[in-house]
């Protein structure tokens, strides 16, 4: 009997099984990452029929309409912006291409709620555009005829699109760069003009890339909390937060479950399209696509790209600098500010450290002991990647409130939730690093007399370390920017920079919000090059 189990166990691992400690650590990580979400789902199911009925009658249809319409609008704008910019910056003779293609990618790393603050400062009721308008029209105060309302559907869609289009842009750029010139030349040789070639050949070949980009944008819209709530637009995440603030955990869970289902739907759709639309580009006669001369359209194209850079990067940064100066003059950088900064830094560094430590054994087991078990644990560890942070926050609130009350309301819970949310970033970096060191490295070390344990420390870790460290840096930056989880889980009095930016902006104390927002942007730009290469 035991023999049979042993045999099955070894078959499962295709030979050697990993050590007990490795299994134990990874199982614990795997369960940490899924339990909060499972708990939310269980709570939602147990919420009771009447509550479901009530929410399904009113709240959910309303939220679905608002969320989905926003998602569609943002995705469309982002696709138009991303594809047009990618094409102009890869396939045409636009001047300053190198600098511009770097600049248009920057919005990727600016957290949209920071962007929202900036646009409220530009276009909002106390923004400088309004001041100019009032000055020109002569009507002021309650007589103002200022037509732009940033706190509207279009305002939210515009802000979100401006900070998510880089997903589409970067994926399209890399697809364009990989595209073989032969296809277009084949089309040309069959008598197709440039325009028709673009529609019939180029665009269809780009479809998988544009599709993945669009889905990333849509997923982001589902998960965003900061920007939408700052602009007073209520989607699922914001509704969950307000239910939680009103201590209606059951309703919050029900809404979360709907949001989880929406996210899963999108992810399934994504993997289904990826499977069916897998184009193979012939490898061995690759030639870089040719560059199109823009001719008399060059000035217009350049104007368009520069306009996007102005709107997406330069205006927000300049306006934040201006308000930061106002803030600093008025004493915004006081002791409180530095305490928030310190809180942000410490929580983020601890989360980064924990992520690095936990990522290594998971990646190691996945690549060195491939089996259904190691793959499942790896997948589990990725749970936090796709799901909105708000749901992870809610899961931790519910779980720790119920079962581990002595930890609830401490920084530990924030760190754990950050780990669940950002561990995938460390995993990706670690996996990329370990893939570079093939299993022959282990075997070489073993054949030279080093035990598996010693091999790990003498060969694997030194080579994995740079990758793991860059993963840790990514986690750190993401954690610095994180808003919803911190909002949900922070102990009383424990504010981070992100939380302060959110509250000051909500209360329209912009000169206090600006310095923090500016710091967020500066920190976020650090890993930009890494992010660009990733997509």
């Amino acid at each position, binding site marked *: 009997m035991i023999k049979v189990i042993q045999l099955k166990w070894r*078959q499962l691992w*295709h*030979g050697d099984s990993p050590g007990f400690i490795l299994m134990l650590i990874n199982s614990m990580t795997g369960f940490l990452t899924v339990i909060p979400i499972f708990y939310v789902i269980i709570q939602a199911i147990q919420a009771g029929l009447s509550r479901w009925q009530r929410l399904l009658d009113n709240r959910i249809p309303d939220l679905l309409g608002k969320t989905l319409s926003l998602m569609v609008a943002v995705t469309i704008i982002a696709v138009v912006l991303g594809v047009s910019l990618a094409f102009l910056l890869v396939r045409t003779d636009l001047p300053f291409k190198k600098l511009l293609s770097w600049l248009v990618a920057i919005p990727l790393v600016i957290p949209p709620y920071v962007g929202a603050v900036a646009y409220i400062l530009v276009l909002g009721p106390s923004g400088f555009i309004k001041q100019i308008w009032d000055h020109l029209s002569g009507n002021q105060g309650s007589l103002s005829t200022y037509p732009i309302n940033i706190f509207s559907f279009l305002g939210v869609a515009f802000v979100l699109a401006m900070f998510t289009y880089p997903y589409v842009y970067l994926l399209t750029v890399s697809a364009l760069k990989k595209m073989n010139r032969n296809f277009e030349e084949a089309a040309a040789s069959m008598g197709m003009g440039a325009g028709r070639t673009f529609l019939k050949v180029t665009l269809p070949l780009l479809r998988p890339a544009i599709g993945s980009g669009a889905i990333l944008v849509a997923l982001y819209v589902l998960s965003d909390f900061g920007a939408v709530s700052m602009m007073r637009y209520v989607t699922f995440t914001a509704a969950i937060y307000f239910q939680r603030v009103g201590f209606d955990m059951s309703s919050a869970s029900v809404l979360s479950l709907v949001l989880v289902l929406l996210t899963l739907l999108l992810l399934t759709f994504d993997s289904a399209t990826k499977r069916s639309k897998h184009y193979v580009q012939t490898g061995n006669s690759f030639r870089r696509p040719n560059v199109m001369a823009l001719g008399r359209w060059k000035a217009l194209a350049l104007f368009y790209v520069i306009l996007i850079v102005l709107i997406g990067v330069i205006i927000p940064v300049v306006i934040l600098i201006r308000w930061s100066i106002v803030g600093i003059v008025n004493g915004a950088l006081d002791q409180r500010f530095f305490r928030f900064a310190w809180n942000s830094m410490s929580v983020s560094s601890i989360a980064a450290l924990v992520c690095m430590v936990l990522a290594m054994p998971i990646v190691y087991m996945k690549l060195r002991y491939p089996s259904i078990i190691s793959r499942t644990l790896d997948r589990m560890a990725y749970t936090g990647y796709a799901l909105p942070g708000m749901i992870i926050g809610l899961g931790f609130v519910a779980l720790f409130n119920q079962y581990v009350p002595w930890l609830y309301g401490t920084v530990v819970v924030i760190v754990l939730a950050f780990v669940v949310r950002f561990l995938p970033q460390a995993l990706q970096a670690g996996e990329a690093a370990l893939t570079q*060191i*093939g299993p*022959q*490295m282990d*075997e*070489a*070390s*073993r*054949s*030279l*007399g*080093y*035990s598996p344990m010693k091999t790990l420390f*003498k*060969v694997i870790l*030194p*080579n994995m370390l740079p990758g793991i460290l860059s993963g840790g840096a990514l986690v750190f930056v993401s954690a610095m920017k994180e808003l919803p989880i911190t909002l949900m889980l922070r102990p009383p009095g424990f504010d981070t920079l992100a939380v302060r930016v959110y509250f000051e902006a909500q209360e329209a104390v912009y000169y206090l919000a600006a310095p923090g927002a500016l710091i967020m942007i500066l920190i976020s730009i650090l890993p930009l090059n890494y992010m660009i290469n990733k997509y």
Partner: protein
Amino acid sequence: MQDIIIHNMTKTYPGNSEPALKNFNLHIQAGTIVSLLGPSGCGKSTILRLVAGFERADTGTIQLGDTVVSDRHIWTPAEKRGVGMVFQDYALFPHLNVYQNIGFGYKGTDCHSRIQEVIELVNLKGLENRFPNALSGGQQQRVALARALTRRPVVVLMDEPFSSLDEELRMQMRIEIKRIIKESGTTAIFVTHDQKDAITISDQVVVMDHGMIQQVGSPRDIYQSPENLFVANFVGRTNLLRGVVHRERGTVETVIGELPIGHIHHDHGEAKVHVSLRPEGLFLDPNGPIIGCIINYTYMGSSIDAEIQVRGTDQILLTHMHSDQPFQVGDLVHFDIMSGYVSVFT
């Protein structure tokens, strides 16, 4: 006795129905270089991995020197076997320099002098502080071999060591690696699918197919006296004929006439046998008994590959001629046969 004995070994990979190795037996004498030659998937790499301790056999025994390292009860892990391994892509540790790579795992008190000794053996003096990414392909291979030799292993295992080198470097490194291994006095097993590698470097060649040994012998035996169709076809090019053996005369009767026999395998007295006649076994001789017409002629620079249709038959024979021969397609030529290139098997 530092011989390596593999006895009755069978290995089936999980998920495969066909075993990668079937009842494999091999006795390797200390100090020899043995190559395992065969097409991909013939089980040659499996032997290497089993001897190194990276895989575990289903049945069978492996004995390195006086110690059994693997059988039904015993299993010595890779790190305790004292086996040196040179990997196909060398697997040099990218975070260590040449000196540290070569010294990796050596724990003797003569550490420094031993590393120096090995560095000199493989001609890498002056490159001690380089990192692997700053070395050429040939240098990387020297480091890999040196690293495997430092601990004075019972046996050095080499997995397709030449496959990532270009042709020129490959020829140099074959000679060089043979010299290094012979100078160090180590036993070596190496795996290749390239017959030139196997023939030039080894004392013994083991030709394998489908997890079984097809023939074991010196490079000359394998080339000149193949013992079955697989070996005759896989190693080099050959002319295959059918024939009947005349035992008393030591000849074989074929469609092109009666040929002298160089080697006969499995003499069961069957009527019909296979005859392998290597192209080198045919030489121009104005008085030779075989007359044929040149039907195809390829000038190769160093020699001429010619196809000859033997007169009175439709048998076509491949032969090599000196590149100075002024023949043309359609010319009649006379040949004689060297018996050393005629091998007969069933």
